């Protein structure tokens, strides 16, 4: 995983190459936002308080996410899509890493995990050096920018059944799910982010965005345990082209798909070994459905 320093130097070298205007979506004023200073978060047995995070936000986050939380911090113009996404606009209340269905708010724990983990392939650093209380306070602070939390509750997390044992059969079945769901249209038949639709992808604000390349050694933004990957394709990454498959993939098939996705990844894994022994071929996008 990239260190913070490496990320910042990436950022600075990006700055030297191009400068593009940021998309501005700031709509709320400070006085509106201030009405929600009482916002709390609940992470495990810790209660976070927005007003206690003011200083930390200024110190650590404002340069990217901006004083109004709209993602227009002074460093934002240097983050260039498609590879580097703009800082999140917290006013919109739209988040990528959720345990909850598409179109719903994430849980406090989801936000806490995202802040702790940071995003690989992104300028969003990891903040595991801050205390748990500081991070919980920051979660409340992030929430207070958006009026959505006043009237809406987070969605109900999608259930993740216990992970079964990996078998050759399951990996083969996972390949069928990958073919049937046509993940390859964006991610490519070998997971290299070069599917037929990859070059035209845009995020919700109309900025170019790259699909995830499973093979380049980077990790998914929303975590890289098997459970995280299961959650990613079931919930989708809101604000991006990555859709939710919760209505289309059954829990058992979802595990098969997780195992198959592992075979693309450069990290060593049981799945990768098994795929080699099976001599699994990539799916054939031109074959009729069912024979790919």
């Amino acid at each position: 995983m990239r260190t913070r320093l490496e990320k910042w130097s990436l950022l600075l070298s990006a700055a030297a190459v191009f400068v593009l205007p940021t998309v501005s979506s700031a709509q709320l004023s400070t006085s509106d936002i201030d009405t929600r200073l009482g916002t709390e978060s609940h992470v495990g047995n810790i209660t976070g308080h927005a007003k206690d995070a003011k200083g930390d936000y200024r110190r650590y986050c404002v340069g990217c996410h901006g004083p109004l939380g709209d993602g227009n911090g002074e460093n934002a113009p240097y983050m260039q899509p498609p590879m580097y996404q703009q800082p999140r606009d917290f006013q919109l209340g739209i988040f990528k890493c959720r345990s909850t269905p598409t179109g719903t708010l994430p849980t406090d724990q989801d936000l806490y995990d995202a802040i702790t983990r940071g995003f690989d392939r992104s300028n969003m650093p990891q903040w595991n050096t801050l205390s748990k209380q500081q991070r919980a306070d920051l979660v409340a602070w992030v929430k207070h920018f958006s009026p959505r939390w006043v009237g809406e509750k987070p969605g109900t997390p999608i259930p993740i059944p216990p992970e079964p044992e990996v078998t050759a059969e399951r990996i083969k079945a996972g390949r069928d799910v990958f073919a049937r769901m046509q993940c390859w249209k964006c991610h490519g038949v070998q997971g290299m982010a070069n599917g037929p639709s990859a070059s035209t992808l845009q995020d919700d604000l109309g900025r170019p965005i790259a699909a995830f390349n499973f093979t380049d050694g980077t990790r998914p933004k929303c975590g890289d345990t098997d459970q995280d990957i299961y959650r990613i394709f079931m919930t989708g990454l809101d604000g991006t082209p990555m859709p939710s498959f919760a209505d289309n993939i059954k829990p058992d098939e979802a595990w098969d798909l997780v195992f198959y996705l592992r075979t693309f990844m450069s990290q060593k894994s049981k799945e990768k070994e098994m795929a080699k022994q099976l001599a699994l071929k990539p799916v054939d996008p031109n074959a009729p459905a069912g024979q790919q």
Partner: protein
Amino acid sequence: MRNRHNLAVVLSAVVLVGCAALILSQGVNAAGEGKITGTVKLDGPAPHMKGIDMSKDPYCSKAHASDPAHYETYVAGANGGLANVVLYIDGWTGAAQASNAVLVFDQRNCMYTPHVLAMDTGESFKVQTSDQTAHNIHPNPNPMTGNIPWNQSQPPGSPPVEKSWKATEFIPVKCNIHPWMNGWFAVVKGPYATSDENGNFTINNVPPGNYTVTAWHEAAGTQTQKVTVAAGAAASANFTFKAK
């Protein structure tokens, strides 16, 4: 006043439910309601709509092999009628509209049918796919309105997605897999209609009164017109848009 109004709503709801079968089969207007009918025209020749290159997905290009697909920003009939214009009543304060049809937004031959789906706030609609290629259905409202974006995959054989919207808004819809697929959810309050390929429309179930009718087109903009609806009668409103 307010109470009497509520009573009237409750009573007419009762009457409506009681006579639902009759009303549906005979198209009789309840409680002396009127309607607004008219035609939307395009001034001058229809702008040329670019053909769509679907070669990135052989399923889609095959589906249009004998009937090439075009963008649907302007769909004009032979008589200059303009289709896909949504007509509704500005500042509607009456009751929500009882939906008498299931609203369906179909992904068919890698296009949206209809291109514009009008609906009332809170009215449910279904998104379905008739295609043997995967789509994703991705409406992109402004979350500040109270309408929240979502994004669901639609591989072949997907069950329909059933949804509704909270707030009035013209919401663009797209498929990220097929970037030419663009459509609209036109969410309005109260009775509405969408102009057909000849530009004709009828807004049904309008109680007698004075109204401002708004006509919205995705590219040509909006126009308004004042109309007076008499009990059981049809008021007329005609619009002419200039292509932009």
